[in-house]
Each structure stands twice: as C-alpha cells, then as structure tokens.
C-alpha cells in the first residue's frame, strides 16, 4: 500500500512531573527555522475533531514546518487527571479552567520539547476552540512568534447556558426565524405534534420580548485572563491570526464583543472567515477552505520570519 504521508514520531516529555505525549511531524524539504504546535480542542485527543489537527499538520509539514501535536495532561495518552469529586463535575467547570490557562505550563513544556527535538528557533502555536485559548495563553514564551486561533471562544462558555445569555444579535436572529415560521404549515405541524423544542422556543421569545421592553442584554462578560493574554501577545508583536467559521455562534460573539473592543485596524491582527462552516468544520468543502487559509497564512509567515 502506498504511504501518502510520513508517519509522525511519538515523543514524550515531562511537565511538572507528568509525562505528556505528542506526535511530531517532520518538516519535508529544507527547514525554515519555524515549528508549529497544535493543542487539544478541549477534552479531545491530539488528532483533533475528526482528525482536523492531523490534516493541518500534514499540510504544514509539507511546507517545510515541523509540527508537534500534543496531549495536555488529562487528555489522550498523557498522564494526570482533573481533580473532581467521585461523582464528577460539570464539564463546563473543566472548560472554565482551560479558558483560564490550566494548560499553559504544558504548552510551554511542549515548546521547549519542539525546540529541543528540531532545533527551530521560532514557534507558532495554534488550535481550535480550547486549543486556540491554550495557544494564546502560552504566547508569553520567548520562542513564540505567532498564534493561530480557530473558532476561539472569547467569553467563558460556562456562562452561556440558555437563550438569556446569548448576545443580542443572536437572540434577534433566532426570534426572527421563529416568527418566519408562523406562516409555515410544516412548522405548525411540528408544533402541534410535539416535535418542537418548546423550551428553546419559550426561552428565545421571552428573552427577545424582555429585551424589547427595555430589559437589555446581560453584561456579557469576556474571558478576562484571555484578554490579558491577547493584549500581551499583541504588544509583544506576535503575529496573530483569527479564523472563524461564520455559522458558529462563537463568531457572533467575536464580532459583537471582541471586535468592537479590539478593532482589527488598531490591534494589527489578521482575521479570516470560512463561509457557512460550523464550529468543527464537519463538511469537506469547509475543511478544504480552512486548510487553504492556514497554508496561505503560514507561507507568508515563513517568508516574513526568514527575512527577519
């Protein structure tokens, strides 16, 4: 059987006494003195959701960039586990810890490991969702020259529980969809045959009405530790790329909460959107556009760093 991609090398390294594992894709062709690291998308193993991280790593490796995909502690093959009571803890509380930088030490250890293993001097960090958060928090490491953040939440997702927590534009959009269905016979059929999600319907419409009569949107708190990491990375002139699937609610929050506070023109970050895509890029054409976007960006990054 023909082997299309070289196998990555499984590398273990230590962080605060925990053994962590990663897969290192060797750069194909001449090295460009830059390495890439991809972090876990929340509790998912280092391959990523339906192996997105592997697909991205293969493409970057072909561009001459070694890529290290790592499992932080408590995920995939790595050691350690979250300290939770015997009967468990809400998963959102674990997400909150990641949002506040629980994996930063692991990320720094991974950077040191990549530098040691490959000899590169510059490192770009990246990830999707929780992986993007870990990447941004870890950008204080002196070897980091850039951060790629795909579908990164800018609010603590533990605080987004129901319609009442959604940003205003999303509530308006959802309510508008329901109103449009008033004239759709199929929608009435679903409503009368108990196929409608009545809880969501009530929650969206009551939230909309409440806000219309002056209740106002709640003070949508941003992830403050993440904002600090963003400002620090921006001041340190790290090259920052945000990529959002535009059918992801996290994009709405980014537009409404983050961009208004940190305009692109003033802060110097780059921003791309993938049309129609959902949070985990489940369709092949969305994936292809994501890969092309990241390849184009890293091509430019290499040229810039090589000239530095």
């Amino acid at each position: 059987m023909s082997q299309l991609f070289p196998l990555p090398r499984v590398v273990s390294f230590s962080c605060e006494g925990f053994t962590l594992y990663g897969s290192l894709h060797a750069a194909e062709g001449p090295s460009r003195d830059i390495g890439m690291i991809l972090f876990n998308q929340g509790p998912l193993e280092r391959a990523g959701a339906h192996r997105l991280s592997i697909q991205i790593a293969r493409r970057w490796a072909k561009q001459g960039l070694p890529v290290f995909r790592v499992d932080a502690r408590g995920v995939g093959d790595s050691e350690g586990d979250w300290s939770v009571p015997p009967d468990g803890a809400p998963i959102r509380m674990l997400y909150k810890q990641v949002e506040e930088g629980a994996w930063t030490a692991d990320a720094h250890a991974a950077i040191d490991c990549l530098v040691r293993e490959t000899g590169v001097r510059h490192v770009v960090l990246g990830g999707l969702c929780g992986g993007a958060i870990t990447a941004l928090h870890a950008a204080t490491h002196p070897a980091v020259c850039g951060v790629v953040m795909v579908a990164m939440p800018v609010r603590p997702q533990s605080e987004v529980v129901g319609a009442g927590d959604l940003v205003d534009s999303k509530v308006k959009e959802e309510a508008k969809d329901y109103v449009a269905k008033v004239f759709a016979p199929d929608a009435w059929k679903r409503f009368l045959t108990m196929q409608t999600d009545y809880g969501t319907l009530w929650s969206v419409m009551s939230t909309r009405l409440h806000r219309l009569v002056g209740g106002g949107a709640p003070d949508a708190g941003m992830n403050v530790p993440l904002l600090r990491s963003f400002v620090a990375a921006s001041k340190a002139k790290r090259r920052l790329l945000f990529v959002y699937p535009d059918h992801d609610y996290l994009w709405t929050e980014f537009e409404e909460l983050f961009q208004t506070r940190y305009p692109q023109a003033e802060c110097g970050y780059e921003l791309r959107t993938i049309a129609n895509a959902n949070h985990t890029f489940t369709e092949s054409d969305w994936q292809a556009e994501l890969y092309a976007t990241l390849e184009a960006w890293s091509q430019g990054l290499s040229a810039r760093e090589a000239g530095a």
Partner: protein
Amino acid sequence: MFERTSGGAVREEPLWCPAPGGALYGMCYSPEREGPSPAVVIAAPDGEERVWATRSLVRSARGLAAAGCTVLRFDYRGQGESEGEYEKTTLDTLVEDLVAACGWLRERTGRTPSLLGVRLGAAVGLLAAAMAALELQRMVLWEPVVDTAQYLNVLLRVNVAMQMVAHGRVLHERQELIAAARAGKPVSVNGFNLSGAYIDGLLGTDLTAALSRLAVPTLVLAGGAPPAPLAQHPHVRVERIPIVPFWREPKVHIAGPPAFLGKTVEYLAPGRQDLREVS
C-alpha cells in the same frame, strides 16, 4: 487542578502495529512486575463515539495493567493516530485491523489474547471471532452494538439534524443520503465520512448469525437490557450495571474509569481483583 495517576506501577509504550491497510497506532500498557500476565486487546467504538470514549479507555487500559494484564489499545485505520483515511472504513477493515492488533499482542506476549470490545468494537469482535479469523481467550463486551442497521440509523440522524441547523430544513432524508453514499458521495457524521460500502456493511450484517457460531466465553456488561441474541446465548453471561455513557459528549466529567471495569478485571484477570483505583 490535576491529580497524578495513582496505582502507577504501569509501563506505557507507544507503538506502530503493522496492518494490511497501513500502520496502526497503539499504546501497550503492562504491569511493572514481571511474570505471566493475561493479554487484552481493546476494540474501541467507531468514529465520533471512539473520540469521546478515548480517555475512558486509556483509564481502563491503565486499570487492567495495574491489575496485572498486558493491554493493547489501538486506533483503527483512518482514526486517531493511525494511517489511512476514515472514508475507506468498512466493517471488513475494522475486523482486519482488530485481527492485526491481536496478532501483534499475541506475538509480544506469547499468549492468546482476550478482547474488550466497546460499542461497535464489540460487534467487530463478534464478527472476527465468528469468522474464526481471531482466536480469543475470552471476551468482554461493553454496551455492545448488535443491531448495526439501527446503529446506522442513529448516525444518519446526526447528519439530518446538522442539515436542520445549517440550512433550517432537511435537504436530504436518510434514504437519499444512503443513495448518495452508494453513488460515491460519503455522508458526513460530525465530520466522519461514511462510504457506501460501510453503510451497506452496517445494513447487511446479521450479527445473530455470527453469534450462533460464537464459542468464546463472553461477558456482556450493559446499562440496560442486553439484546436478546446475547442474553440467551449459552457462552454468554450478562450483567447490568448503571453506566454514564462515556462514548458520548459528556455533560459531567467523571474522573474514574467506567463502572464496567471492576467486573471486567474479575473476568479477564481472575485472582487479580486487587485493582487499584487508576484514574
């Protein structure tokens, strides 16, 4: 925030296992203490269920190794770290990969392995054992999928639900999706592309027939009533244990291994019930 894995007398060795469809990634867990130890291969669920189950299976592998077993946990081709692309997955390739993994562990340990099959991995184990492609000491099946057509139906429902979210309506019903897959356009289930061959395999497999040829002593652990063909089989013992479905996206994080592990250790490593808590 994090705890060290307790009962840590376990060696872990990442490996690449040769297989007909390319190298399979695996992790071999073995007890630190020397001496003969039962060999166990873990056949994971498939696709999205495998992704969510991975960490629980890592904990289970560590638990079995701490109780004295040598355990191989591996990724099917096109999944996890293994070579290949998921789109080429069929029931036959899953069986082929399981046979390769069992062969690797048999060669490593010199012992006929037992199997821990989880969800569709249980069905794959049953098929492999029935085809006599696989010699096994014992089997433990966790929440086994026996009705593969019904399992497929649930997967296709995920695609239909995604259409509703993305487009506000259903563009392609299940039968249309199946027809499209047969014509070469795979069906995405949370990003895992199901081919026509895989779909036909799931629709056409008769596990009841496979069960009629089952001669391996088997323990079935399930949260609810186990499927009748298993419950009535002379070589099968069934136990019901309440379980958090660790193969689905969790709302609650449980630190310990799945509730099925204790009985599994008793069955696969008799006399080694000194299972220490490995999280």
